[in-house]
């Protein structure tokens, strides 16, 4: 049965490719216009909230807080992580708990040099299970879940905890990339600016942050207990947690405080991570489909959730659209080159500035809007767009959309086929 579904999805991919391959230019334009309109609507919606003044009220309360660091084979980063965690200033840190989820390396040995409580689990059961066990034993009113490869800044808790309102179930932050080295990390750095910068910042104004990022989120323990903690069988428990909080009518807050985290160094690692994310996204979107267009959940139901859901098919279909047009272009120029070669004539490379096509112009206006959002994202944490960010910017504009869409396609295939889920 699952094999059949996997086969069907491949068939669907081929059909999509062929349809776009033979599609008339005027229909291509219609497709481009539809995508363009959808994007314009999303951008307009976010753009309008830019002028929404939402006052953040400072409660001045600093309730007790437990910091949980789940870890599994993280000997390379755990020392730096714990040093940052312990350096955080806060009057009522009740406990720092390191959950060692059956590591087979020196994680526990390194952690034992720090004043933290180590919770050892012999068997590796996953991040969600580790967190749940630590949460059950936590005492504070708040729980901060910090990944073992994340380095929170010193003043994070002091600057954020007073802003947690009674309606909130969680407080999220601006996740950034720690010192990017490879080109793939530079690309992810720019991508994180988009996805953890302007969009959640503006989204928080209408309570439409959907994810509680794994690297660092502060939860209210009462909220976690009410909704039953993390789903231990979910591969993207952070997205599931966000949706679950919204379903129980909790709000998710956001503050633009930069929290650096480690990201995959190379393409293979990035691919493994993204396949997990996107499969989790599709799985959870299907799981929480009753949020769709449900005005009981305000803007989450009518905007964020449908937009997140619409993004998946749009990305996948656009992948084949671009692929088919690329294939068509290569086929045509190859044919021409072959004919030119036969008749011994070189093609000319004349360029007329007036010869600009509509789709190029739409691409340009896309680019302008995203540069605008990037600018907001950067100004939130006072980052500068220096020449060191240029390779990442070029990658995120020209390589990322296609690679990312490819990951979505592969994730859809794997999800249809029902291959084993891996963390």
């Amino acid at each position: 049965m699952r094999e059949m579904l996997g086969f069907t999805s491949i068939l669907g991919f081929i059909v999509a490719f062929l349809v776009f391959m033979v599609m008339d230019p005027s229909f291509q334009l219609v497709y481009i216009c539809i995508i363009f309109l959808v994007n314009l609507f999303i951008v307009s919606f976010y753009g309008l909230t830019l002028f929404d003044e939402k006052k953040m009220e400072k409660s001045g309360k600093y309730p007790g807080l437990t910091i949980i660091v789940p870890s599994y084979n993280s000997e390379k980063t755990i020392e730096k992580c714990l040093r940052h965690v312990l350096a955080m200033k806060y009057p009522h840190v009740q406990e720092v708990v390191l959950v060692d989820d059956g590591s087979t390396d020196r994680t526990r040995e390194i952690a034992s040099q720090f004043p933290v409580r180590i919770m050892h689990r012999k068997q590796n059961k996953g991040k969600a299970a580790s967190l749940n066990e630590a949460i059950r034993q936590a005492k504070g009113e708040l729980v901060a879940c910090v990944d073992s490869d994340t380095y929170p800044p010193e003043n994070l808790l002091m600057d954020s905890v007073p802003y947690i309102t009674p309606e909130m179930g969680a407080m999220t932050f601006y996740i950034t990339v720690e010192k990017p080295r490879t080109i793939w990390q530079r690309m992810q750095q720019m991508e994180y600016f988009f996805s953890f910068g302007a969009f959640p910042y503006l989204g928080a104004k209408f309570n439409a942050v959907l994810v509680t990022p794994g690297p660092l989120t502060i939860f209210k323990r009462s909220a976690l207990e009410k909704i039953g903690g993390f789903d231990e069988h979910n591969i993207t428990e952070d997205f599931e947690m966000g949706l679950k909080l919204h379903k129980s009518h909790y709000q998710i807050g956001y503050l633009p405080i930069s929290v650096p985290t480690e990201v995959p160094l190379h393409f293979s690692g990035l691919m493994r991570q993204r396949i997990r994310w996107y499969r989790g996204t599709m799985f959870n979107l299907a799981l929480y489909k009753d949020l769709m267009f449900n005005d009981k959940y305000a803007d989450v139901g009518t905007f964020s959730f449908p937009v997140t859901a619409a993004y998946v098919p749009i990305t996948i279909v656009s992948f084949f659209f671009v692929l088919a047009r690329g294939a068509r272009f290569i086929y045509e120029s190859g044919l021409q080159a072959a004919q030119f070669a036969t008749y011994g004539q070189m093609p000319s490379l004349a360029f007329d500035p007036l010869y600009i096509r509509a789709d190029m112009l739409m691409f340009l206006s896309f680019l302008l809007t995203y540069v605008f959002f990037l600018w907001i994202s950067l100004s939130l944490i006072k980052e500068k767009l220096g020449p060191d960010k240029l390779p990442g910017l070029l990658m995120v504009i020209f390589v990322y959309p296609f690679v990312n869409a490819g990951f979505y396609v592969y994730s859809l295939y794997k999800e249809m086929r029902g291959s084993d889920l891996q963390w």
Partner: protein
Amino acid sequence: MVNLKYAMAAILMVNLFFITLSVIDYMDMQRLLRFSNDLASFSSETADLESAVALLRVEQPSAEYCKIIDTAYQQKITTTNDLMERMLAYERANMFAEFFALKRQFLLSNIQLWQVSQLEKQYCNATHTDVLYIYSSDPSCSECQVQGKILDSVRASCPNVRTFVMDIKESMATLDMIKMKYNVTSAPSVVVNGQTYAKVLSADEIKQLVSCQ
């Protein structure tokens, strides 16, 4: 009830969409305007040459008359070639603006010019050769583009060659009659010295046919 925020976002979306479309339309119009201006003078000059040739046929053909026609022709030959190249490029680039009326006008003037050139040859002992190239505006005709490029290069290396263009898909009385006369049924085709070649001709083949100087 529709939320005000959604309505505003929708309005903004529509506005942004039309701004983008207007920019595209503006660029189309600019292109068209430039082409249209050049075409207007091209057409009037062609009409001028046509009446000059008509005069030549009524009067006794003389070397002086022929010289006037030839000089006038030489002056505008670069304009013709420039317009021809631009028409072929804009045909693919154009998005919204009505380009086709201009295209028909150009094709007609171009054919008139071809007729002038042939009459000049008949009455004035001119040494040039006329090459009529029939292409197809169908983008799938990649051979047409190859043939066009080959003719460009031939024209650049042989000053005695004059090239003219005709779209096989365009239906006008003059064009249809010429198509019938030379038995043109497919694109790309080339008509040289009254002979039709319904295939891609290489640069060397054309040079032999036109006795390139």
